């Protein structure tokens, strides 16, 4: 089973990310059974049918970088998992979307980074409010993912408050409280 980093631990993960193919239609595409993260377009087109699965916690929605968080905010109470896609690791829109979902729209469910998600960005992601990180399957070995997890504690002091600070592990939070963001 693929592994992800979630809530500060490496965990097995059963969720599948559904991506629309070129000829797929968001309205007619059949959403497979099981735990699925569907594109926003599919969610919008099939919301009445998917709502129950979402509320049961077996269906999530992923946003692309051009998603308008304000237009999506009304759906947040229905969802227990929202993912944000990074089409390239250099595309930083997902960080701002995450911050907005957490800080402005009060989303408290699972916020997962998907797509081209690389270990040297994990720290930024968690600080922006992601609590789950799903690199492409097979991208990292067990040793590498463990090293990546350990590296999340590389910076015990921080300069700025951030949306994700409250979802940090208790240890980090304690350390961060001593850190510079308390001063600045």
């Amino acid at each position: 089973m693929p592994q992800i980093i979630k809530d500060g631990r490496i965990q097995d993960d059963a969720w599948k990310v559904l991506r629309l193919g070129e000829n797929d239609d968001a309205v007619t595409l059949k959403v497979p059974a099981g735990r699925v993260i569907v594109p926003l377009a599919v969610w919008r087109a099939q919301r009445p049918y998917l709502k129950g699965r979402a509320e049961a916690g077996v269906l999530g929605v992923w946003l692309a970088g051009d998603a308008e968080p304000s237009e999506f905010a009304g759906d947040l109470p229905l969802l227990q998992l929202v993912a944000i896609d990074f089409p390239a690791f250099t595309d930083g829109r997902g960080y701002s979307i995450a911050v907005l979902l957490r800080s402005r729209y009060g989303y408290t469910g699972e916020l997962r980074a998907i797509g081209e998600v690389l270990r040297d960005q994990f720290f930024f992601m968690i600080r922006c409010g992601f609590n789950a990180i799903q690199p492409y399957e097979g991208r990292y070995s067990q040793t590498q993912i463990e090293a990546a997890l350990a590296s999340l504690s590389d910076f015990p002091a921080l300069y700025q408050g951030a949306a994700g600070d409250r979802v940090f592990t208790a240890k980090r939070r304690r350390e961060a409280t001593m850190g510079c963001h308390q001063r600045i």
Partner: protein
Amino acid sequence: MYQYDEYDQRIVDERVVQFADQTARFLAGELSEDEYRPLRLQNGLYIQRHAPMLRVAVPYGNLRSDQLRMFGHIARTYDRGYGHFSTRQNLQFNWPRLECVPEILGLLATVQMHAIQTSGNCIRNVTSDPFAGVAADEHIDPRPWCEIVRQWSTFHPEFAFLPRKFKLAVNGAAQDRAIIQAHDIGLDLVRDADGNTGFRVLVGGGLGRTPILGEEVSSFVPWQQILNYCEAILRVYNLHGRRDNIYKARIKILVKSLGVAEFARQVEAEFAPMKDGPSTLTQAKIERVASRFSDPLLPELPVNEAGHMTHLAGNKAFANWVKRNVRAHKVQGYANVVLSLKKSGVAPGDVTADQFDAIADLADQYAFGEVRSTHEQNLVLASVRQADLFAVWQKARDLGLATPNIGLLTDMIVCPGGDFCVLANAKSIPIAKAIQQRFDDLDYLHDIGEIELNISGCMNACGHHHVGHIGVLGVDKHGEEWYQVTIGGDQGNEAALGKVIGPSFTAAEMPDVIGSLLGHYIDRRHADERFIDTVRRIGTESFKTHVYAERLERLEAMEVC
């Protein structure tokens, strides 16, 4: 200047360890070239024409003597015996070996220095007035604000992967010396009618391929809110800036396409719910940062001290230097000295290892151990006692740092150009040298008076050619290096972008072309009129006609021979 506390030190130390690990993973093949590139760039490391180039952050141009000595040590041990001050107040080493860079960063950390965010598509090193805190025309000291911006922008998690680089500058004086209009965000410290401190905020300035001067998005943001406000600007940019075309990705393009009014509206809409948010500043926080600037106490001293006046009257060379290279200080009896890094025959902005050590000694002896770098690629000794100026001049002269040319033609801003930089279309240093050699007569230079000549080796405009009174831009035409000339640009309160005078010139022609421009100025100027003022009065066209007429004469003369 600012002294690190234990948190500042820990963050820099941790970054050294982190970067060493990233570099080790790259060298071991775990990280691809594409994956490593933004990591090394965000730590100031470029892969250049001959070797990597390491750009060390000099936050808002402030340096201490121990840091200069470390530059000297690094230049001697890991480089070819010199370093280069950039046009954004930073210091670049041109020849370090990639595998040595983590070690160099480790050494820099021991003197409270780093290379964090000196490159990459993130918030870059904040720049400011090199005379901050000591300028006679300053109303608010920008340094504590710069430091607050430095800390806030360091590893800001939301803005590490912006569409493109992002530069901030802060000014607190009557005369803007930080070219805030040429920055993505320009912060101008102001007071409102009740005397409260705040910021006039400009957005969307930048040189490069599409030069644009920044426009005002807010006339007054209270200081408590300034980081929230900057976050609102950056968030609008991060979400909506173009990512499909690197040449259209700067915030200036977004501001232009939306129009400044619509951009300002979007920023206000983003800012409104963020007001009083987590990045709100408090008096206690400001004071904590300000208290770490251990400025010397400067008791007022007599002006026109007798010994100084005697030297001024009796030594023309010294008097010349004082006139050109010494600036007014806010405290009576002190002065600010500009050390010229523009000696004829030396690449502008270059400092040798021995010079680093000697400048550090000068700073310790005469300037409370502090030095500032300027975006014009010179150094400043702040707070020199007037009575010490003669001794400083003598020592600086022995070091080749007292050329009395600050603000004159040979005080050029020049990027490293095609000799070093992989982006360059043409060389810029040899052009600068040829011009220095042609116009090295000091009487002639003083007669021409204040003029800014800026040279860039490509349209990225590191040499700030758009804002030079005369700007020179290296261009590639069918594999050959040519030079396009603009006139009428200016920095400061009267910031303006120069206009191209016409078809480009070969490298060999450039001294003659500059000669034609200066000749026309001398013919047409009014008494006490600077070059830029003559250009404004009589127009670009008049200069253009003259330059190309003289060029034709030269070409015809060559054919006759």
